[in-house]
């Protein structure tokens, strides 16, 4: 990302702005955690704020806002999908249980007699 001095100076301003935003959001994260919504609610709120912070870091500090390479975007996209699969599918399997089926007892002698014995 070669840029002129003017470009880079503009970027420096945005770095400082992002820094301020991140500092504020960190304080918000802690403040919001003092309230108890529900178990899930707290998680969602915390992750939303963290997600917002992450977006700022990724787009401005890591220059993704100006990134034109589709290879990078594809890689990140696929990574994101698989990350979500890894995060949620295992816990979904843990919470899905087979139905309780009562089959009664197998009457083996009866079955054998019916087939003529063996």
């Amino acid at each position: 990302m070669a840029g002129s001095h003017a470009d880079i100076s503009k970027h420096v301003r945005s770095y400082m702005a992002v820094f301020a935003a991140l500092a504020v959001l960190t304080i918000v994260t802690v403040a919001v955690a003092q309230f108890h919504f529900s178990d899930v609610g707290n998680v969602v709120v915390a992750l939303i704020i963290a997600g917002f912070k992450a977006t700022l870091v990724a787009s401005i500090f890591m220059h993704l806002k100006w990134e034109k390479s589709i290879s990078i975007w594809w890689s990140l996209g696929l990574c994101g999908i698989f990350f979500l699969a890894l995060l949620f599918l295992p816990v979904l399997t843990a919470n899905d249980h087979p139905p309780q089926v009562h089959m009664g007892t197998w009457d083996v002698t009866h079955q054998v007699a019916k087939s003529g014995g063996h």
Partner: protein
Amino acid sequence: MSGHDHGSGRGGHHDHEHDLHHELGFWRKYVFSIDHKVIGIQYAVSALVFLFFGFCLMMIMRWQLAYPGQPVPIIGRFLSDAVAIDGVLRPEFYNALGAMHGTIMVFLGVVPLLVGGFGNYVMPLQIGAPDMAFPKLNMLSYWSFFVGCVVMVAGFFVPGGAANSGWTSYAPLSVIATTGQTMWLLGMVFLITSSLLGSVNFIVTIIQLRVKGLTMFRLPFFVWAQFVTSFLLLLAFPPLEAAAVLQLMDRLAGTSFFMPSGLVVSGVPQDFVGGGNPLLWQHLFWFLAHPEVYVLILPAMGIVAEIITNNTRRPLWGYTTMVYSLVFLGFMSFIVWAHHMFITGMGTQISAFFATTTMIISIPSVIILTCLIITLYNGYIRFNVPMLFALAFLPMFAIGGLTGLPLGLPASDIHLHDTYYVIGHFHYVVAPGTIFAIFAGIYYWYPKVTGRMMNPALGKIHFVLSFIFINTVFMPMFFQGLAGESRRLYDPTVYEHGVQMIGMRKMSSWGAWMLGLSQLPFILNFFMSIWAGKRVTNDNPWEATTIEWLAPSPPPHGNFAKVPTAHRGPYEYSVPGVKTDYFPQFAGAEA
């Protein structure tokens, strides 16, 4: 055009290039080389040694299966008391042989050979590049692999012997297992690191270093296969690395990530606080291990595609479809993993999800196989040794794939899980599937690497014997599995049906030993031909169309005297209006 470096005329590029043109000493040229070809050969030779070693481990195991409780002949007297009593394998050692056979064949044999060996050597040549994008990283990748191999094999020499909890290292058994399991975990960390460094290198190389005119859809199918495989390795291996760290913590720091509460082993309550879940290990393990099996097959399909199109003198039928299938297959491979866990108590909804994705993933495999078969239609088929192996791959892979279907459906899997049916299924895909593709690739690219041909008569003997005996080993296993015979069982005769299956086991065992002997013509041929093989008269003895055949045989440092350009697609065979029956990618406008 033999290996001299050309020294002058680099001018302003001096700052950016590696200083490749002063003479390197022995160590920098042959041991710590950053040349992708040397590294490729290092990977290939190491991997072939490990394939042989892993095969030997299994040949020992098969004695116990065919002749339970009897001393192993020939080598029995050399086995120490730790592993065998008067030559009769101890059960723990049998389990170690099984776990290490699987681990070594997959992680130290097949993948390093397919990706590290073939991928490293051939891929840069096929895209016209002078080397990989990150040559030093490439070297680091090999040496990380090497350290991993040493640590893994060192497991055999620690008290308690090598890892013996299956190549799958399921908790809680693996957590309470002996020291060898720690070596397995540490070895895996090095192997995974090697893989990750390698996959970054492959992806960047393929994206950035293709020569002019070589668009993505003009790439040889082999390169596409390596590309998708690298994404699988890049994104699927890290969760296993995380899991290995967690298991190391359980073993060394006493954590309970995988240890349930109240675990009692042989009457002894285990000293863990508990609260963990063995299924967590299974999820993290299979998240890698399923894409891993596609890592085992995709480059093999790539090799087979190259050889089939070359020896039918026709383009690949449905190239674009095959590429899309490859990419779709790679994507789907990340969301099928729990089909290895159908009987762990998963409910019907989530099982249905994974069964559905598993059924869907069979479609692209079938498409690729079908396209390869259709390519043969109306072809002028040359039955040379690479082609024999490539042709055999097709029905063998079909059997392997089809036998996977009852395993992917929960209802039938309940009966077949953890039986010999599973072993038969996956070995058909990897052994007469992938390993045949590997043989095909070795016979095919040998002249490029060495400048000499392997002996075709020995090659044909190798093929016929291997084909017969590999089927002898694995075909009975489907029947054993249907009869209910469990895998990983030291003495199947503890069960009535196990007693009845002794004939099948003997057949597999004798097949295995004969298969081992059948490799002798290959080993002989491989080494003899280095010095005594027929020299090639030109750089393109197979009259192929892909760019690696433009380079000298063997290629010098830097590969090509002049940067090639791609003028057309990769498989322009039997083009109307062209004098020869092949029109190479790198040839100029006229034939």
